[in-house]
């Protein structure tokens, strides 16, 4: 049945080569943990991607209940966590996944760094990777505010003051982030939400695309 459907589409659109390009490629022996167990260090990039997928999915579902408004944000989070089926699990995935993704990205960076895999010709991919790391930190920072509880509020306060300490442009930077020169409030929450669910994910997907295209073009760096 599925085979027939696949053949039907393939006959018209010739999708097999596309599929081959994406999924059918050789895994060199030195990155295969079945050959050398120590090769598990090559898994961290893939794990980062895996957790990112979980983050995207659980985040999409959370927005079905969450509202970015200072009156209702906390109540809506409380509602989705305590009243909605599996709410605690879905929010838990997003909450813990946010930390796990940073850990994985960090381990991935360490591997690339200590193996010297960032060296020529892969410098560009290193740069994109660093940008991805910053985007992830941005996602963590903006997402932290959204439940609008005390911890979130004061963490954001601190983050904004760190931004303010940047020489020359600090004041403007903080106003731009918070949406107001003095208040951390309604405008801040709306803006952090927009950044968290639209702007940073868009940047994330573009950079991930670039990261993956480059690795497919250049291949995995050789054994040490």
């Amino acid at each position, binding site marked *: 049945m599925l085979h027939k459907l696949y053949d039907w589409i393939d006959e018209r659109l010739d999708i097999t080569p596309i599929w081959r390009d994406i999924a059918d490629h050789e895994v060199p022996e030195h990155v295969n943990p079945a050959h050398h167990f120590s090769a598990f260090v090559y898994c961290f990039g893939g794990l980062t991607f895996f957790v990112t997928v979980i983050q995207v999915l659980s985040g999409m579902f959370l927005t079905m209940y969450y509202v970015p408004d200072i009156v*209702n944000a906390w*109540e809506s989070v409380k*509602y*989705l966590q305590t009243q*909605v*089926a*599996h709410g605690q699990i879905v929010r838990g995935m997003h909450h813990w996944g946010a930390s796990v993704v940073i850990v994985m990205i960090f381990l991935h960076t360490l591997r690339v760094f200590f193996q010297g895999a960032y060296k020529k010709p892969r410098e560009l991919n290193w740069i994109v990777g660093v940008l991805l790391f910053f985007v992830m930190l941005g996602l963590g920072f903006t997402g932290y505010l959204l439940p609008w509880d005390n911890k979130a509020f004061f963490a954001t306060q601190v983050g904004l003051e760190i931004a303010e300490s940047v020489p020359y442009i600090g004041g403007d930077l903080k106003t731009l982030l918070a949406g107001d020169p003095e208040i951390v409030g309604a405008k801040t929450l709306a803006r952090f939400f927009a950044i968290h669910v639209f702007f940073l994910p868009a940047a994330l997907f573009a950079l991930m695309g670039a990261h993956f295209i480059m690795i497919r073009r250049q291949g995995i760096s050789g054994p040490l």
Partner: protein
Amino acid sequence: MTDKKNQVSRRQFLNYTLTGVGGFMGAAMIAPMVGFAVDPLLKGEKETDFVYVMDVDEITNEPQRKTFSTDQVDGWYESQAEHTAWIFRTEEDEILALSPVCTHLGCVVDWNSNEEYPDQFYCPCHDGRYNKLGENLPNTPPTEPLHAYEYRIEDGKLLLGKAKSRKGA
């Protein structure tokens, strides 16, 4: 290794195991999210509150428009929901409290508001009409009678609950 044709090859075995384990993990990940999304379907019906609307001895044979409000819990948002009822005594001395929501497409009907159709409930949206008992008149758009509120009488007071369809009743 045997040379039997229908033996599962190493490649096939690995394929099946990996697809199986991967599928299981994927399902474990997606299942809570799907439950989360379909939660509104899992919530059962809420209990009906009966609310005081008017005294029984004030009810006349002419429909009177009465409004009342009920507590409404909408997820994390609590408010008062406003309702309207047309209340009167029928010829058979029964109390009838009609919902003004047109059974065609949900506009609001009015009693005796159109001079051409006296003593009828009239819906301005598509000329829907109902007689005094709220029964839809033939050849007008509505497909069933106006819904009637469930009611209770306690100490000479009329309490209204939910408006229910009277189709087939």
